[in-house]
């Protein structure tokens, strides 16, 4: 293709239309048509797009502006998808994880946000959705979604994490996302719950609020009134667009720093009471069984956690300079520091934290590192603003045993072999 063909093609509206359609069966024009498919099919040996040659995609116009009314990632990024749970017989009550190793910065795109559903993902017409607030309030009220959107709004960046991320018996996964990808972070927009509660008028004896979803599980959790008045939100948007169906469209409650399932999606009811409801999801589930056979209840707080996301499991590194980077967060507030060990925990160095460090949000950390090519183990360890230090798995196991299932916030060691291959240092015996 001659370099002049770009100009020629832009002048010809007919040809432009052919290009946009990616049609190959258009007689004489076919030689000019090079759809994405055709380009990808060309031999990859292709030094023809590398210097000193001019790459193919500069020799003809690209796709029309707006050819994708809702934009999607490049087709070359198709492998960046959520991790699906395989060891399950049904996907109605199941989960998918964020590929944390492929996330840059602290914001997880909506399409990669982790999922945990208990009765599938309902398709809700927002015009047919209502939020009822009743119980110990002066004015029991039914709100439309538009009513909630009329309240003074707020946007905040917070992480959300499933309490079983991962269970104490499932620490052997290959990638960072498979291990602790039941955590994501994004910008949420909605009305502070406090504003709405003050508007319906809380009675003095109000101590708990039971939140219920409009899914097939009618998932129900009790939330302490203090948390509802502190920083809970009625959320309708994430990362600038309306909530995705999998994140509770058209309305969810957000209780920052508390375990994921309390952030009830498809929120339809807030029942204000003087005691918790002791629903199945806070008795049979989401209680932490200890070695002595007792179980901890109302274990809301997601304690400080960090993980190195690059290099991490399945990556391969070269000797010389390697940036170590990862994510840290804590339900108790802000990350104060992240230490990284490149010698299996013998010595630790402070990583650099990406500003701004936000409350109850992912915090990106980085450490410049030169790998000498010798086998080693790298680990990160976060300390939060309360002084709490992320424990090792052994420390957690000594106190809680392996049956607890939830709130495993151990440090994650990655083993680096002489070949540069990175693997999970926890290996199933």
């Amino acid at each position, binding site marked *: 293709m001659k370099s002049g063909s770009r100009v020629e093609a832009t002048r010809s509206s007919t040809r432009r239309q052919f290009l946009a359609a990616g049609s190959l069966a258009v007689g004489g024009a076919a030689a000019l048509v090079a759809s994405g498919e055709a380009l990808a099919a060309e031999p990859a040996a292709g030094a023809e797009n590398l210097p000193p040659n001019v790459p193919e995609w500069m020799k003809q116009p690209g796709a029309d502006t707006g050819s994708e009314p809702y934009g999607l990632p490049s087709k070359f990024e198709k492998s960046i998808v959520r991790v699906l749970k395989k060891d399950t*017989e*049904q996907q*109605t*009550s199941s989960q998918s994880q964020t590929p944390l190793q492929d996330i840059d910065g602290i914001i997880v795109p909506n399409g990669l946000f982790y999922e945990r559903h*208990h*009765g599938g993902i309902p398709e809700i017409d927002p015009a047919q959705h209502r939020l*009822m*607030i*009743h119980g110990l309030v*002066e*004015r*029991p*009220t*039914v*709100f439309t979604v538009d*009513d*909630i959107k*009329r*309240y003074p709004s707020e946007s905040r960046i917070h992480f959300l994490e499933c309490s079983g991320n991962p269970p104490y018996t499932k620490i052997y996964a290959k990638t960072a996302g498979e291990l602790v990808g039941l955590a994501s972070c994004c910008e949420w927009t909605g009305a502070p719950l406090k504003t709405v509660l003050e*508007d*319906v*008028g809380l009675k003095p004896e109000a101590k708990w609020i*039971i939140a*219920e979803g409009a899914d*097939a*599980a*009618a998932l*129900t959790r009790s939330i302490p009134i203090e948390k509802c008045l502190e920083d809970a939100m009625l959320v309708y948007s994430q990362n600038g667009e309306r909530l995705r169906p999998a994140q509770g469209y058209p309305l969810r409650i957000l209780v920052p720093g508390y375990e994921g399932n309390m952030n009830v999606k498809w929120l*339809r*009811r807030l*029942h204000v009471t003087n*005691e918790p*409801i*002791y*629903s*199945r999801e806070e*008795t*049979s589930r989401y*209680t932490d*069984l*200890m070695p*002595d*056979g*007792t*179980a*901890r*209840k*109302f274990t*809301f*707080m997601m*304690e400080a956690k960090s993980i190195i996301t690059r290099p991490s499991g399945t990556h391969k590194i070269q000797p010389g300079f390697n940036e170590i980077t990862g994510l840290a967060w804590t339900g108790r507030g802000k990350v104060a520091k992240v230490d990284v060990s490149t010698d299996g925990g013998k010595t630790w160095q402070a990583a650099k934290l990406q500003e701004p460090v936000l409350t109850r949000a992912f915090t990106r950390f980085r450490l410049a590192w030169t790998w000498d090519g010798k086998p080693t183990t790298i680990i990160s360890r976060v300390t939060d603003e309360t002084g709490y*230090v992320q*424990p090792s798995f052994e*420390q*957690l196991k*000594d*106190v*809680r045993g392996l*049956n607890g299932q939830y*709130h495993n916030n151990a440090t994650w060691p990655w083993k680096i072999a002489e070949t540069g291959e990175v693997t999970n240092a926890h290996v199933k015996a």
Partner: protein
Amino acid sequence: MPMSRLSLVGAAIVLVCTTTLVYGQSKFGFGKKATDAEIAGWSIDVDRDGKYLPPGHGTVSQGRELFQNQCAACHGEKGEGGIGDKLVGGKGTLATAKPVKTVGSYWPYAPTLFDYIRRAMPLNAPESLTNDEVYALSGYILNMNGIVPADAAMDAKSLSAVKMPNRDGFVDDPRPDVP
């Protein structure tokens, strides 16, 4: 044309009336009053003491038949589990290396059984069972766990009176506990 004093007064009266029509003393005045009927239709929470349990009743034997039709495909003929949770057994296993958490071994409150079955079961058709059916199923699952006798009938009073074996098995969150 300037508005007459009279029509100004009239406008003020209209304004006052409109304001007082807004529900209660709400600052923003959004939403509408939830009627008793609306609340009754939606409020399905059952607390641990069973004081929100609805009228109705069902027997263990009715529950046995319902269970085979509505539950056994996922939970097994005898509640031994399958696609769905194991519902029976596990007594004495909670402090072992392989704990088996079931209604019988783990659940602290019987009214929660009614609450959960009514709101979420069966998985493919939640909220399709009548209250009588939910009482019957609750009774049968308790019976399979040896907690109520085979001739038991369940209603708000009898289900609330059931003392679950693991009722006292739960403790408050002691964290931070490590390190």
